[in-house]
């Protein structure tokens, strides 16, 4: 638990995590809960954690609607959640 070798950006924050951590987990570790907003603007957060519920979608490196629970963190990655206006 000491090898925090990966640093990524979640909205305006930076966070360091171990290799193998998913973006959804990193968002939770960084203290965020909301990943996306519904059509009517309601906050959504990961539910299933296994790529089924689609609620964990975020924008990763400019690409919208990526499943954060199915994406591993990488060095220098930029993640936008709904708190920064990403749909």
């Amino acid at each position, binding site marked *: 638990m000491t090898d925090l070798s990966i640093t990524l950006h979640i909205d305006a924050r930076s966070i360091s995590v171990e290799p193998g951590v998913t973006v959804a987990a990193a968002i939770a570790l960084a203290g965020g809960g909301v990943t996306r907003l519904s*059509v009517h603007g309601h906050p959504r957060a990961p539910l299933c954690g296994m790529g089924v519920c*689609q609620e964990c*979608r975020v924008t990763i490196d400019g*690409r*919208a*609607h990526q499943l954060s629970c199915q994406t591993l963190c990488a060095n220098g990655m930029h993640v936008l959640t709904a708190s920064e206006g990403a*749909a």
Partner: protein
Amino acid sequence: MNADVIVIGAGIVGAACADALSERGLRVAVIEQDIPGGGATAAGMGHLVVMDDNAAELALSAYSLSLWKDLVGDRPQRHEYSGCGTIWIAADEEEMQAAMEKAQNLAGHGLLCEMLTPAALYAREPQLRAGLAGGLLVRGDGLVYPPKTTRILLDRAMRRGAVTRRATVTAIEDNCVMLNDGSRHLAQHIVLAAGARSSALLPALPIEPKKGHLAITDRYPGFVKHQLVELGYIKSAHAPSGDSVAFNLQPRPTGQILIGSSRQFDTIDPAVEPAMLQRMLRHAARFTPRLTELNIVRTWTGFRAATPDGLPLIGPCDARRGLWLATGHEGLGITTSLATAQLLAAQIQNETTRIPFAPYLPGRFHD
């Protein structure tokens, strides 16, 4: 069921007929075997588009769009209405010529349209590939989510006393329908509005199912702003046979992009066919290359009720006493549903109609 009129089918056409007939004081019963608005009504793109392949099609679609304007009124969100307009894309000078003729035709009906130079086209829709010749913007076109409108029309009819019943009609007799529970129900008028299923009840009807595929993406607000249709659509969509695809892209109010379209004859299998879907998506990506970067979240199919001449069947049918048809709308059923209901209800009540109803009479196929 103690009804003056039994409407078979609660798609948007049947619901609009129930609304128009109940408004005239008739007691209406609607029979639907599945969910109201769950068939072709839910499967299509929900576009409200003026089409002008011939004078009768233009008259019906223009009349209906004016009725839609009244219905949607100041509560567009109830219908998920968007007045996005349509841009007909011209790939070359020949299609630009076709766009100009279309513009003159529509302007002759008082419809707002505007020719677009390539610069004007790309200013409005920067996702389009380079090298297009221009386009035609039809401002009055739009889109709705048809199952919602169907529900609104049915609810309005029910507030006037109309009833709905979930059952399957097994036969139509003179002034009578038979249901799958063996019951028989009499009414002065029977309205058959069952879309592509209509010919199962009357095999002699000149209706053929035309299968279509659609795909919808995740939300990418602003990717395109208008409904985009290639002018080549007219050539491919109305070919009398053979499979075809045409570029038809639509921005939903949610920010999702609806991608069409395909046409297939000689099949009643609702399965999504990967080969046809691939052909449709590749064709769409030729017009908007960055479409390949978007996530598709759902694909599905539906069946249009196609007639040999591309016009719907609206009016009396002499196969049974008291029988009226409101079917055969092919890909224009959402657009023309409201006008269909007005023309049919007026005929049933011997009223004069806003536009001539003769071009849509079922009897045109009986000579």
